């Protein structure tokens, strides 16, 4: 098939499976890290704003492949011998946590101030105000950009090829080295990435339009 054997195509799809695993890891980890970052960025405390701001600035100013290397070598000098998946997962967590935190900060701040004040008038405590008044509204705003960022996560897992993590990009590289059919191999890889990302892009823009209509 297309000059590739069934095994070679299956190898590409195995890589694609690990791309999805790493994307999920990155999204789950990114959510766990991104929530406190968003709260810190939107908080009144200057210290929290500064600390979370530093993390965001650091991650947004360093290329993801370099973050991957730093985590990879950092874990190994700490005395742990971990598979590349862990290093790539930690790096993706840092990366998506910083970006998601910045996105969600915007969503929290986009809820009108009067909502806070109205909550205060109803004698809700600060926590109650945040959980029952602000959060539901912020979540609605957050859906389109978050789905859009999922596309970034999937695409950026490809950088884990620098630490030789077995994902779709890595398997495509291996098959290309074996068959020397770059157009076929990388077109298939691109199509698989596209098949994962494009539906999410469409979904993101549909959510976005729905949000702006209402």
């Amino acid at each position: 098939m297309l000059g590739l054997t069934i095994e070679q195509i299956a190898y590409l799809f195995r890589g694609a499976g690990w791309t999805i695993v790493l994307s999920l890891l990155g999204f789950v980890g990114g959510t766990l890290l991104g929530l406190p970052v968003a709260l810190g960025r939107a908080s009144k405390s200057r210290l929290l704003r500064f600390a979370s701001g530093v993390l965001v600035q650091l991650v947004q100013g360093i290329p993801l492949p370099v973050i991957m290397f730093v985590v990879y070598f950092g874990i190994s000098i700490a005395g742990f011998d971990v598979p590349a998946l862990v290093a790539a997962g930690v790096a993706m967590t840092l990366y998506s946590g910083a970006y998601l935190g910045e996105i969600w900060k915007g969503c929290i701040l986009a809820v009108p101030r009067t909502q806070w004040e109205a909550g205060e008038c109803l004698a809700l405590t600060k926590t109650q105000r945040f959980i029952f008044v602000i959060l539901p509204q912020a979540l609605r705003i957050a859906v389109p950009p978050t789905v859009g960022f999922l596309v970034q996560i999937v695409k950026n897992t490809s950088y884990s090829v620098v630490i030789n993590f077995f994902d779709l990009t890595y398997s495509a590289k291996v098959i290309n080295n074996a068959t020397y059919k770059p157009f076929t191999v990388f077109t298939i890889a691109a199509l698989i990435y596209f098949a994962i990302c494009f539906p999410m892009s469409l979904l993101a823009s549909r959510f976005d339009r729905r949000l702006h209509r209402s």
Partner: protein
Amino acid sequence: MGYAFDFSFLDEYWPDLLNGVWLTLGMTVASVLPGFVLGTLCAVGRLYGPPYVQRAVTFYVEAIRNTPLIIQVFWLFFGLAVLGAKIGPFPAAVIALVVNVGAYTAEIMRAGFRSIPKGQIEAAHCLALTPTQALWSVQLPQAVERVYPALVSQFVLMMLATAIMSQISAEELTGVAYMIQSFTFRGFEVYLVIAVIYLAMASLLRLTLMGVAHVSFPRLRRLGTPL
């Protein structure tokens, strides 16, 4: 932990790091303007072009934005090699970056063009400007002015993305770092150092592009808001 940090490799290898910095900056500078022009042309084509141009641009933009840069780079670099076109890693990297950033710029510029109030275009018609003149001297400056911060972020991201070009043996900063760590086995320290260098370069690029805006948008500087 008991790990002793050792940055002594800097004595021996700083000229290599400097070369890497130059190559990274060179790639970035070489890609910014062509990427911007390509993206703007695509935005204009998608908004005002005939249907087949609109479809072609949409296809290009979606294909690029939904696949990773590294796959595009491999496709181009290894693909051209098979076709027999001898092309060095540096030109291949620049072509890939231009094609990649062009797609993102097209989306940003499209948003810019669409955000211009109708009255501006009607005013241009009333002054008997041709559509091309209106586009060039009324719409384009305003669109750029409006989306400039987004463009700056996109180009900073592109500079950071050059870090994977060592995969096609363009020895930019990350490639140099890999070379140094394979000689010295000081991987953690090497990558910490280049992380700091990248941070500095990102700030530098952002400041430079913001400085360009300060000089080229005098009206924005005076009023503080776009038209």
